[in-house]
C-alpha cells in the first residue's frame, strides 16, 4: 500500500462532484474515479489482503453509488472525503454481509449513511476544513504504535478486541492507545 503525500482539499474534486450532482457530467465522474478508485481499492485490500476481485467490485459499486446519490451530497454536512469514506465503508460491510461473514437482514446503507443534519450551515464548511487540517496534521505526528491501532480499526475494520488479538496486545492497551490518539487529534467531545 502506498501512502500518498498530496492530499485532499483539492477543489477540482469538489468541482467535479458539483458537476456530477447538477449537470450529470460523466466526464466529471471519471475525474472522481481516477482519484478515489485507487483509494477504495486500498481500503478494501486493507481489510482482506489479496482480495483483488472484492476490491474491484467494491470500487465499482462505490463509484456507481456516488453517481446515484450525488444529489444527496451536502458540502456543509461532510467533506467529500468523509462522504465517500462512509459510502466505501458501508459498501465494504454490505459486501461482507452478502458474502457470509455478517449474514443478516440489516442493510447497512439504511442507517450507516451520514444522518441528515438540520443544523448544517455555511459556516460549518469552513469549520470542517479547519478540523480536517488539524486531524491530518495530527495523524502525521502520532507515534507509530498509535497510528497502527487506528489503522487496524479504521482501515482494516477490526473491532477493538480483534485488534488486540491480532497485535498481541491486551485489550486495555488497544483501548488506551486509541483514546490517546483520538484525544491528540482533538476529536473527543467532552461530556
Amino acid at each position: 500500500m502506498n501512502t500518498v503525500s498530496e492530499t485532499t482539499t483539492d477543489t477540482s474534486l469538489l468541482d467535479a462532484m458539483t458537476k456530477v450532482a447538477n449537470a450529470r457530467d460523466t466526464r466529471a465522474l471519471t475525474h472522481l474515479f481516477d482519484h478515489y478508485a485507487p483509494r477504495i481499492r486500498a481500503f478494501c485490500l486493507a481489510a482482506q489482503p489479496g482480495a483483488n476481485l472484492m476490491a474491484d467490485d467494491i470500487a465499482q459499486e462505490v463509484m456507481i453509488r456516488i453517481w446515484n446519490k450525488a444529489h444527496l451530497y451536502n458540502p456543509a454536512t461532510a467533506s467529500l472525503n468523509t462522504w465517500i469514506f462512509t459510502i466505501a465503508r458501508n459498501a465494504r460491510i454490505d459486501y461482507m454481509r452478502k458474502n457470509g461473514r455478517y449474514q443478516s437482514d440489516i442493510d447497512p446503507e439504511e442507517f450507516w449513511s451520514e444522518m441528515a443534519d438540520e443544523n448544517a450551515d455555511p459556516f460549518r464548511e469552513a469549520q470542517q476544513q479547519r478540523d480536517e487540517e488539524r486531524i491530518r496534521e495530527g495523524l502525521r505526528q502520532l507515534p507509530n504504535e498509535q497510528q497502527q491501532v487506528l489503522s487496524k480499526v479504521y482501515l482494516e475494520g477490526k473491532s477493538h478486541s480483534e485488534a488486540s488479538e491480532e497485535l498481541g496486545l491486551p485489550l486495555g492497551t488497544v483501548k488506551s492507545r486509541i483514546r490517546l490518539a483520538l484525544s491528540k487529534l482533538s476529536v473527543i467531545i467532552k461530556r
Partner: protein
Amino acid sequence: MLSCHPTLDTLTDYSAGALPLAHALAVSVHLDQCTQCREQVRRLNMVGAELFATHSETTSQEHMAKLKDNVMAAIANSQAQAESPEEREGFMHIPQSLRRFIPKGFNGLNWIHLTPSFKLATLCNEMGGAQIALSRVKPGARLPSHRHTGNEITVVLKGAFSDEDGLYREGDFICRDHHDKHQPRVTKDAECICLIVLDSPIEFTGCLTRLLNPIMRHFHPSNALNGG
C-alpha cells in the same frame, strides 16, 4: 437531556464499521435522538476519512481503465434515483433506521404476549447472531425479574422505565452484560417501548415466569429450529 450514551469505544467501532450490525443498528437508533453522539460520530468519521484519503493502491493502467469503463457503462443504464425524503407523519417515535422493520407502525407488528402487561415483537434476526426485538410494557408495570445470558442493548423509543440504577428516557442507550440481573419498572404516565438487541436469550428468574424461558429461547436466532 439524555443520560445514557454508547461509550466512545463503541462509537469508534461504529464509525469504523467494526461493530456487529445488530449493535450498529441500536447505536444508529440512539444517534437519531442524540445530537451530541451524532457530532462525536461525525468527528470520528473525519479520522477514518483522512486515513482513507492517504492510502491508495493502483494496479496496471489497463486494469483501472477497464474498471472505469464498467462503471461508465453501468451508470449509462441506470436511471438517477431521485430519492424523496420520506414522510415523517405516522412514524412518531420510530427512528429512520427502524422504519423498514415497522412499516405499519407499532400496532401493526406481530406482538407476542408474554405476560398481561409485557409484549415482545421480533424485528429481525441475524444468522447465528443477535435477536432484534421491541418490548412493550404497560404504564406502571414491573417487568418480570430476569438475568441476561449475554450482552443486551436497550434503546428507549417511547416512554420511560427505571431500575435499581436509575431512570431511562427516550433515546437512552443502555448496555448490560451477563452479570446483570435486574427488575425494570415502567413509569406510571405512559407505556414504554424499547428496542432490544439480545446476543443470547434473556432468562427469567421468577418461579412462574421461568416457564417463559423456552419461549424466549425459541425466538432467539441461536435456536436452530427457528431457522434464523
